[in-house]
């Protein structure tokens, strides 16, 4: 059964006073309003969230949201796949409609993080690592530092190419009123910012963020009846790579990106050349290169050239992260994959405002851990 997206929303990302329950219900309500669907139509509710227990001491957020939104007695479930919880939520929502189990599925992703210190938040995220890694104090940013050094040394890529990713995504974020940062930066600022995980600096990393995003899914048949405009999930794939990052054959290949995108392309009957716009998981600038290579847009070791040549800018051959990406939009863990879907939806139905590009086919790649779990979604504008 064809699966359509008929509504989308996101809250302002950034440092928010609202706690998790309020953030989730804000995005959920706005999404139902956006689609003109009433709560009693919702049959399944998925909540993408990595760690509300660890961050806030509140568990069972799907039940809390179901009650607050008035969608009872809808089936509800919390989806945790660390940083790719949002993408995994899209997968669950797609499955629920494609299988016929639900005619109307609401997906809401969210995280509340900024009340913790950077050290505490880093520790919660680092707890996804193997105990033999965790005891060495490894963090996700330090994986990024080691991978970036290896990439730059092996492929003779200029350090500036990473800075260009940050500059581009900050530029795009200026046009996103919900982004955490709406501020342009230049290459020099990025290259001179404080070192976080050598050779990576502050501007190579996404911030810590509060926020929520939502999407509403139904069958294509019903979408054609009730929605003015909608998008279709034409392909989706999910894959898992090693838990221990150094056990991968090649440190510059994200196997989960390769496998999940192949699956999504095959289902959609499309390939990398068909893409008009993409949202990639730029939690760290280096990840944009690894994903461009993993989804087949660039050959291994060459994605940095696209950044240098402006090919991934809004006016380039394949605009990447028109939303501002995680880099400037922010990264509330469970919300990020959903917010990627929101951006692709808005691009496909022509609601992206100043960020609008011409797009009939869009891809979102949501990466959990350091490539540990990956979901790739291909969406198309409805005929």
């Amino acid at each position, binding site marked *: 059964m064809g699966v359509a997206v008929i509504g989308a929303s996101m809250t302002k990302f950034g440092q928010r006073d609202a706690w998790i329950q309020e953030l989730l219900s804000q995005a959920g309500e706005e999404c139902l309003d956006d689609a003109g669907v009433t709560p009693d139509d919702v049959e399944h509710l998925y909540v993408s969230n990595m760690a509300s227990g660890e961050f806030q001491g509140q568990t069972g957020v799907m039940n809390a949201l179901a009650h607050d939104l008035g969608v009872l007695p809808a089936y509800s479930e919390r989806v945790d796949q660390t940083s790719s919880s949002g993408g995994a939520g899209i997968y669950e929502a797609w499955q629920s409609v494609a299988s016929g189990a639900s005619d109307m599925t609401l997906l809401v992703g969210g995280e509340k993080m900024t009340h913790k210190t950077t050290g505490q938040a880093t520790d919660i995220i680092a707890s996804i690592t193997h105990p033999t890694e965790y005891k*060495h104090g*490894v*963090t996700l940013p*330090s994986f990024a530092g080691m991978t970036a050094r290896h990439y730059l040394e092996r492929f003779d890529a200029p350090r500036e190419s990473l800075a260009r990713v940050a500059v581009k995504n900050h530029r795009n974020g200026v046009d996103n009123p919900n982004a955490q940062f709406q501020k342009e930066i230049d290459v020099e600022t990025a290259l001179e910012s404080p*070192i976080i*995980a050598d050779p990576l600096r502050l501007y190579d990393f996404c911030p810590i963020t509060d926020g929520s995003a939502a999407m509403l899914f139904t069958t294509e048949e019903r979408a054609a009846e009730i929605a003015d405009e909608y998008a279709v999930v034409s392909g989706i794939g999910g894959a898992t790579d090693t838990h221990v990052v150094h*056990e991968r054959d090649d440190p510059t290949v994200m196997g989960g990106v390769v496998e999940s995108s192949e699956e999504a392309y095959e289902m959609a009957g499309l390939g990398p050349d068909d893409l008009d716009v993409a949202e990639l998981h730029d939690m760290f600038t280096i990840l944009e290169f690894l994903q461009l290579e993993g989804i087949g847009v660039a050959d291994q070791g060459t994605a940095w050239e696209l950044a240098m040549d402006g090919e991934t800018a809004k006016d380039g051959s394949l605009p990447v992260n028109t939303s501002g990406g995680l880099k400037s939009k922010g990264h509330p863990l469970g919300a990020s994959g959903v917010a990627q879907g929101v951006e692709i939806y808005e691009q496909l139905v022509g609601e992206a405002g100043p960020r609008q590009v011409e797009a009939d086919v869009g891809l979102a790649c949501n990466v959990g851990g350091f490539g540990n779990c990956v979901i790739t979604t291909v969406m198309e504008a409805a005929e």
Partner: protein
Amino acid sequence: MTLAAGSCPNGHVSYPTHPRCPECGEPQDETVDLSDRTAEVVTWTTSTATPPGVREPNTLAIVEFDVSDLDAEDEFVRALGQVTTDDVESGDAVEPVYVEELRDPDVGLKRETQASQDWDGYRWDPV
């Protein structure tokens, strides 16, 4: 204390050990102690934003041990660990040195569950 890698009947070697070989799914039935071998630095970073209980800065490296003498299928096995110094380059030779406590388990997320894992281990010391 050993730096134990696991190996399976098909000669695949991994660090750390797993109940089943990640490569072929057979049970890992033997271990190889890497602690008296030297390794080569594949890549490294110096992290300046470290979590509670972790030294700052924290220089980490992924290193590669040559295990071709074992007559196994895999000729190399990689491991991740702290480096004894901040002065390291890719390609450097290092040897493991034992450290009783790599980070302070009394602070941070696992302070109440610190018995769930051990906290000693090996740092890489440039030869």
